[in-house]
């Protein structure tokens, strides 16, 4: 899966919980879930659970804690997909 496809699959999940819709429209690898998208900590958990379902992977606590922006999310997803 290339990075463009990854972002395309990630965006609708993120858009569900993002408070800042303008930031969703201009989403890129540097987009920060909390600072840019204004996602709260409870909804950050929902993003992670939805990512698990969408990509059929399991995300551990350590990965969860550093999944704070789009590029970290993409790295973690690519990692977990590889080790499947």
């Amino acid at each position, binding site marked *: 899966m290339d990075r463009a496809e990854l972002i395309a699959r990630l965006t609708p999940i993120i858009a569900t919980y993002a408070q800042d819709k303008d930031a969703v429209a201009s989403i890129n690898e540097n987009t920060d879930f909390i600072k840019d998208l204004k996602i709260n900590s*409870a909804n950050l958990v929902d993003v992670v*659970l939805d990512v698990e379902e969408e990509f059929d992977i399991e995300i551990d606590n350590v990965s969860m804690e550093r999944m704070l922006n789009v590029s970290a999310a993409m790295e973690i997803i690519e990692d977990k997909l590889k080790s499947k």
Partner: protein
Amino acid sequence: MNKEEILAHLPYSKPFLFVDEILHIDENGSSGTFTFDKDLDFYKGHFKDHPVTPGVILTETMAQIGLVCLGIYLTGSAEGGVPGHVMLTSTAIDFMKPVFPGEKVKVVAEKVYFRFKKLNCTVQMLNEQHEVVCKGTIAGMVTNKMNG
């Protein structure tokens, strides 16, 4: 943790404690009861001359018996764990019937998931006729510190 220990860990007191008794608690859910004293202050204003328990108070009651008691139990019963604080993060409740002053209600909560410190439960409140008065989903973050 047993029921008494959980009650002792609740961070509320009158007039904002809405748990009288925990009936059952385990890793999958909790149930408990509360009786709405007819002299509770909010009945004077909700509504003028027609006291009905406010929906937010019913929601709070379901949150305290369902989410908070269960959150304390799950964290306090974990190996090496300490009872956490529960910060409410979302609610989605449907209301079916009014609850009048003096009524006793039972709340039954089932855990949907508890992951990454977020506890999500389905909750339902029953009156003494065993009718569902309200039900829905409540979630919160279980943290080590208050306001966490």
